[in-house]
């Protein structure tokens, strides 16, 4: 799965309250959530983001409240993969369970700037920075996790599995 897009770069400890503020949690409509994604740290995010783009962030991305709306809003906004130094545990599980690809890569986070053009092979963990002509290598997620993400998350994978029986 190779994807090309622009990097939206943020710092450490991006919490779920800024990814999707609670004042917008009265909707579970994915499109509606995506309109408010990141608005408390980056007002322009939802206007600028295009299908396939990337969020690149520091350590502990997605810390705070266990709200699956956070990865849902990111995914619905068109983000193809979140690349971070590390992920907070609940966000990590939620992202995989709703089918949002994630990669941990220290080198990528260190070198990528806001607006850099990236080409990412998510299944192999290869991150190419086209703007800077650099390549970074992340440890790819295990196959069965990748399959779950490709299937659109845990619930969809189980549905597919049961329907095919």
């Amino acid at each position, binding site marked *: 799965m190779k994807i090309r897009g622009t990097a939206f770069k943020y710092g*450490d*400890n991006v*919490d779920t*309250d*800024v990814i999707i*503020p*609670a*004042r917008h*949690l009265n909707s579970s409509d994915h499109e509606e959530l995506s309109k408010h994604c990141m608005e*408390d*740290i980056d007002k322009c995010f939802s206007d600028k983001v295009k299908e396939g783009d990337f969020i690149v962030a520091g*350590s*502990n991305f997605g*810390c*705070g*409240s266990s709200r699956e709306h956070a990865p849902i809003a990111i995914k619905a906004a068109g983000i193809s993969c979140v690349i971070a130094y*590390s*992920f*907070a*545990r*609940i966000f*990590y*599980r939620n992202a*995989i369970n709703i089918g949002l690809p994630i990669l941990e890569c220290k080198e990528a986070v260190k070198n990528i700037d806001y607006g850099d053009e990236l080409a990412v092979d998510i299944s192999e963990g290869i991150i190419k920075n086209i703007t800077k002509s650099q390549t970074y290598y992340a440890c790819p997620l295990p196959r*069965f*996790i990748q399959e*779950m993400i490709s299937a659109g998350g*845990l619930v969809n994978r*189980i549905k597919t*599995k*049961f329907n095919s029986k």
Partner: protein
Amino acid sequence: MVSGTCWMKVPSAIRFSLTGKPQKWVGGKDIILYIIGMIGVDGACYQSMEFIGEGIKHLSMDDRFTMANMTVEAGAKNGIFPVDDVTVRYIKQRAAKEYAVYKADEDAEYRNSYHIDLSAIRPTVALPHLPENIRAIDEIGDIRIDQVVIGSCTNGRTEDMRITAQILKGRKTAKGMRLIIIPATQNIYLTALKEGWIETFIRAGAVVSTPTCGPCLGGHMGILAKGEKTVATTNRNFVGRMGHPESEIYLASPAVAAATAIAGRIVNPEDVEGGL
């Protein structure tokens, strides 16, 4: 549940050896804030935090629940305590089935080990906008507060209600202060009612709510306006968490929160006891 399987990333573990006896008015909240201050909000990212040592015998189940609850604020997968007499007494009152006791292996490997002297921890407050941003109560200075919230999954338990009642008894909240008290469950609410604590709260000037996450995540009942400051016994104080992005959240124990509601500024419960 449908498939009978669950995927799991196995965490590595960090060990916290607790010794000594906590000072008066120091409880689980102060201890876990102190620890988060020490290791940072990603200090235990995807790891298991294990608390051991002779110090834990001084911690009630409610203290331990608060600490386990807030290990998430250090990025941890979980927070666990060994089973001791305190745990067994708790289980016996509640377990409807046979229970099994699990222990850490003698030769378990830990990525890190820390020693913490509980007797040295002061009532502790986390300043905006991260739970790691801690100060001992003695170093807080003069911070005026508009609203105090006592409750939530972190500190809305029976012991929290008892401590709150102990401090509020016969006292009044500061002028202009909004004090919101939210027992975490219907059972805790009933206990507070039977013990007369609810009356104490109301006479002190508090409003008491049915159990709800409510203000903790800026849901309802106590949403902060621009520039307002709150002391909350909740678990996190990120930007805009409880309302306006320019409001401020200070995390503290129920004892510090109740004392603050009386004083109108963040204070040590001892100050309220001694008369302001």
